[in-house]
Structure formats: structure tokens, C-alpha cells
């Protein structure tokens, strides 16, 4: 696992600023980049021509050498492959892949604190965080992933990252997110982020909304 994270971190450091020229099946590209809507699972599976959609998607989601538009959509549509998307998909292949993806970015940030993620990489990170939230796993360990190193995400210089994390904490449906959100509410000074925290707390503190 650690070795894979290191590889991932190494890859991350070498990310191009824009999508590279790695050949991608045009049918897969088209299925993943609809212009008006999120990608459709039926059409993406069809574009993969019989191979396991979720495995191919995880592979694309981890491949920073492909066009960012494709990779971000691949990351973000992973929760659609949860066996029961509305119920939550803790400890499934999709969930674990997303946790690994987020941890990969966090490890990269920790190991080379001097580097600043490029704009596309920030977007990839946000897509992974948002997708993890969309698994509705209700797992406190997922909350830990997003909050254990506050400097990495909850105090990230980009307010877009902070808002994404707050919304993901809400979407996870884990009551373990309430405390870090309360703490964040006392420290967050950006008035554009504060409403997201308030909304997340309001949602999680309402009866039956988290476990």
C-alpha cells in the first residue's frame, strides 16, 4: 500500500499542467465527456466494450497523464458504481479506491510540502474528495481521512478545497463529522466558506441524518 502511495506521489509531482497526449479510446472519451450532463453509467460501460467498467474507471481515475476533463469525470462518477448508491457503499471497491485516491494526494502533499498543486491537480483532488462524500459511507474513518491533517484540507489555502471538504463531510452522513465541523466553524474566517459549514452542521445535526 505504502509503495503504491509513493508511486502515486511521484506521479503527482510529475503531472503536466494540461492533459497529455495519452491515447484514449474515442468512444470512452465521448462517453466520459458529455457536454450537458454527468456521464451515464450505461454509456460508459458500453464504451468500455465488455471489460469491467469499475476497474477501467478506477484505472482512469488514477491516471494523471490523461486529459484532466476525462480524469475528473472518471473520478467523480465512481460513486455511481456503488452497489446501492443511495444507501451508501462503505468498504466496496469503489469506496476503497476513492479513499486511496484521496490519501494519495494527501501523502504527496505531506511528503513534499514545498510543492503547490497545479490548478488541474487541485480540481482532481476536489473531485476525489467530493466523490468520497458521495459514497455516503457513514464511516468515521472517512471523516478521519478528510480531517486528520487539518493543514492539508480543512485549512488548505484554496477556499474551493475547503468548501468541497465541508460538503463531503456532510455527504458522508457520519456523525463523526460534526465535531471537526464545529471546530472549523470557530476558526474559519472566510465568509464564503462559513455558510457551507453552517449548512453542513445544520444538516448533520438534524435527527436521523447521520450515524
Amino acid at each position: 500500500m505504502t509503495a503504491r502511495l509513493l508511486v502515486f506521489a511521484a506521479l503527482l509531482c510529475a503531472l503536466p499542467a494540461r492533459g497529455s497526449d495519452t491515447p484514449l479510446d474515442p468512444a470512452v472519451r465521448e462517453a466520459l465527456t458529455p457536454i450537458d450532463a454527468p456521464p451515464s453509467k450505461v454509456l460508459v460501460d458500453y464504451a468500455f466494450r465488455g471489460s469491467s467498467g469499475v476497474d477501467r474507471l478506477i484505472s482512469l481515475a488514477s491516471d494523471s497523464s490523461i486529459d484532466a476533463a476525462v480524469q475528473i469525470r472518471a473520478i467523480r462518477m465512481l460513486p455511481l458504481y456503488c452497489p446501492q448508491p443511495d444507501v451508501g457503499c462503505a468498504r466496496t471497491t469503489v469506496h476503497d479506491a476513492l479513499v486511496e485516491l484521496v490519501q494519495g494526494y494527501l501523502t504527496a502533499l505531506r511528503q513534499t510540502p514545498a510543492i503547490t498543486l497545479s490548478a488541474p491537480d487541485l480540481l482532481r483532488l476536489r473531485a476525489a474528495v467530493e466523490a468520497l462524500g458521495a459514497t455516503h459511507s457513514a464511516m468515521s474513518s472517512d471523516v478521519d481521512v478528510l480531517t486528520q491533517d487539518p493543514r492539508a484540507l480543512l485549512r488548505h489555502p484554496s477556499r474551493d478545497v475547503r468548501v468541497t471538504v465541508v460538503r463531503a463531510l456532510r455527504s458522508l452522513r457520519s456523525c463523526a463529522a460534526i465535531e471537526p465541523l464545529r471546530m472549523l466553524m470557530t476558526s474559519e474566517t472566510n465568509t464564503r466558506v462559513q455558510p457551507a459549514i453552517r449548512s453542513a452542521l445544520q444538516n448533520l445535526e438534524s435527527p436521523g441524518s447521520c450515524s
Partner: protein
Amino acid sequence: MLRELFSVSIVLLALAGCGGGGGIGDSCGGNNDCDSKLQCLAGTCAARCDHAQECGDGYSCAEDRTCVLAHGHSGDICKSEVDCEAGLTCRINGAEVNSDHRLIASCAAETAARGAGDQCEVDTDCRRGACELGHCTDLCQVDRDCPDGSTCVTIPRVAVYGALFPGCLPTHGTLTWTIPVSSPTADVLLPIPVGAESAELVMSVDDPSQQVGAKTVLDPCGCTRYQAPCPFGEPADNEPCSDLVAAEQYFRPPGDDDIGSSDGGADGSGSNANTICGPNSCKKPANGTFGNRVRHLPALGRSVLLMPSIPSPGELKAPGAYQVEVSSFWSTGAPGSAVPHVTAVVRLGTGNMLDLHFFFLDLSDHPCTTMTGEISLSAATAPTAPYFQDTFLGELTEVFRRVGIALPTPTYEDITNQPSLDALDLGDVGSLLSLGKYADGINVFFVRSLSPLGLEAFSPSPGPAGLARTPESGIVIALDTLCYRHWDDIARLTAHQIARYMGLYHNVEPRDPRQPPDAPLWQDPIGDSDTSPDNLMYFSEHPGIQLSGGQREALAKSAVLR
């Protein structure tokens, strides 16, 4: 009336010079006493008329451009407002029609209510007793009977199930009005006058968990133009409803033998007895299935029925009342319990100017500022920023110039008091679009990002053209796309969304694996649209900006243009 005439005379006196005969303002006993370019009106030489309105109440403007005193007394049959003497109006009697299949009217006293062109809800709101298409309407025979900027056209009268009469309507522009509905499922009549290029019904329900839309559309002859796909409509061919069956019904275009108008000889004139329906008015395709001429799907909370979807000859050319069954639906497709709100918008004449209104959410510290010259894009910076003006707006202007649509100088505004909408979740898009305050043109909102991340833009399809402050009054562009794309890509993306708002569909949809392998691709039913990725309306990210002639024609009919 005398005061009106006096005012007209004074103005004409000031404007015109003296001729060989009597000049403007000179006393006269007849037209021969005045210059040949003038007329004798109420004992004074005055300019000749172009419209009856210039002559005053109780006069018509004759073909020789002279004002002629009306002699219609109360109770006399009339054909035009100008047939009745001052103080009287030409009012439709009821449902009786003459040999030309036009409603019969007679002179009657005006009431102290709203004048011609004013908005109205019922006939009694109007001084002259006719409220049609949400506006008080005068009867007429020729364009001269109507005010400047208006035309005498054939109008269906909703109160008598679409029977026709000639009335004055604006030559160009849009007419918007609400249609009262009192039950969850109801038939409403959408009057289509001569000169209408497009018409739409914007339907909404207060319960956002229910869907709303049209179930059927019948044309003025009672021929079916649209049947909602299952589960909203009946499953076709005795098949149980499935996603694929619903999609097949939605995408099924009319057959080649079924595209023409179902009317009995509409020619678009205001005097012809058009929309005469006979036993063979409704063309039925030989194979028994029915192809929808209108693309429409009921949707959660709100939907738009736009006609025509396919700009083919005959569409909307026959005046008459289209009967639309409007309904709310539960998620199963069963009739719902919410009472729909219905607003109608009719576009008269075509347009070629598209007003864009740009709104900027708070974009400070945006991660993609390398594409904005390291400055925050806002209403203050966009009007002078080269990447915005030259690249983005330049490309957008070029896309629409190619189809004959000009983009005048846009408006720029910031929205800084909505922090929760800066990074927009797709579920909240209605809250943002409700801030779209311009009814003309299109409201374009630039947000930081759109979630699910990766989604680059959103547009209702079609949008409620001509209506402001609805949850669909605009389009959204996510600027995190700039982290991996350029401004010319954003321009093409924006053009695509604008075209969807205006009523265009994808030129082709991706093949659904559930379709039989030999089934045709789901295409735009516009005849000359191809399936090329070079088309602006291609379903996935491609750099194409081409539009076919039919697509151009469909855009030109949109009520967002002026």
C-alpha cells in the same frame, strides 16, 4: 376627441410646410382645398394618414391615406374597430361566425377599462372587450386599422374554442401571459395567431417532488402533434414501459409522409378562411405508429413545451387554438395532485439580435486565474479583459454571426451576496437561475465550479424564453473548466448551452447499448442536421461550431431574440 384632433393638427402644422393648395392648418371644405399630399380633416388641412390611430377615434384611414368618418351605430355589424363611430367599439358578439368563418362583431359602447395593447386577463379588462394572448386587442380588416408597429392578423379566440377573428397584434416581439388552471390535469388552449414563429408553455408546480408537463398536444384540427412518452403517456404497441421504450417514443420523429401541416390550406393571410378542418385533415402514417412533432418531457417542478421543435413547412402557420393537456405527475408517471401554473409565450416575427446578460458570482482567488491574467473576473474586469472580450466574446460572436444572429454589447453584473452559490451544486441551480432578472435575451451566470465536479455547464432545454426570475431563467458556466481548457473552448461551450436554451437538441445522441444493433441513431429530427462531431450541438466535448440550415431556422424563431 376634439382635443385629440386639435393636438394632431398642431403637430402636423409644425412638421409640414405649405404646398400648392391649402397648407397644414388652413381651413378647408374638402380634400381638394388642400395640397395634394394633405387631406381636409374636420375643416382643416392635415397630413394624410398611415394608421387610423392618427385620425382619432371614430375614423378609419382609407386606402388613399385620408381619414374617413365612421358611421357604425350601436348594434350595427362591423368588421373593424374603425367601422364604429367615436365612443363605440367593434365587439365580438359571441360564437357566431360569418361565411368566411370569422366571428361576427357589432358596434357597442366602450367601457372604462384598459386600451388596445394593454395586458389583460379577461375580456372585461379591455375597453373594447377582447382580451387575447393576454393583451387587449382591436378588431381590424387591414394593417392601417392598427396602431403603428402592429399588424392585422388572424387570431383564435380562446373563449369560443379557437374561432378566428382579425385583430391587431404587434408585428414583432413576444407576448407573454398566464393561463389559469384549476386542477392537476387540465386542457388549456394555446392561441396561435398568424405571424407567430414559435410558442411555448412554461409549466410549473409548487411541489418540487412532482413532475409537470404536457401529456398531449392537439392542433387546431384536433390532430395529435404530441403524446408524452411512457410512463407519462400510454405505452405504445402494448409494450410495458421501460427506459428504452420511453426513449424510443421520445426520439421518434414523424415519418416522411407525416411531416406536413394537418391544416386544410393555411396560407398565413389574415383574410383567408384558413384552418378549415376536414375528415382527412389528420395525416396518419401508414405503419400506425405516431411520430411526435414536438420534443418535450415532463420534468420535476418545471418544464417547457416549445413549438415548433422541427422547423418544417406548415408548423404553426395555420392560426388556431392548440389544445394542450397539462398535468402534474408522480414519479411513477401517474397523474399528480399539484395544480400546474402555466405561462404562455408567443413569438411574433423572427429576430436576429441576442442580448446576453453576464452575471459573475464571486470569482476572487479562483484557482484558474492563470487564464484570467491573474486577476479576478468580475463585472468590472470583464468588459476590458482581452481574454474575455477578444477570445471568449469574439468566438461567441462568430458562432452566432454565422447563423445570422448578432450579439449586441452585453450587460455585466456581479452577484456577491450569494456565497452558497459561488461553487454551485447542480441541485441548487434553480436558486441561481431565479436571479436571472432579464426577460429578454439570456442570463449567463459564471460560477466558480459546478458539482458534480467535471460538469462544465448547465442549461434548461429548452429554456423559458421571455421569462425572468424563474428557476430556469438562464444558463450556468463553470469556470473551473479554465483549469484545463481555454477561453475559446468556454465560448463554444457557452454557445452550445445558449442554443439548447433556444430550443436546439443534440444533433445526435450516443448509441444506447439497449437499442437493437440495427436501430437508427437517436438524432435531432431537423431534416438537414447531420451526426457530425463538427456540429455545435454534438453531445460531447468537440470543437465543432457548425449548424445546419434547419438548426439556424429553429434558432431564429426563438423568443429570446429581438
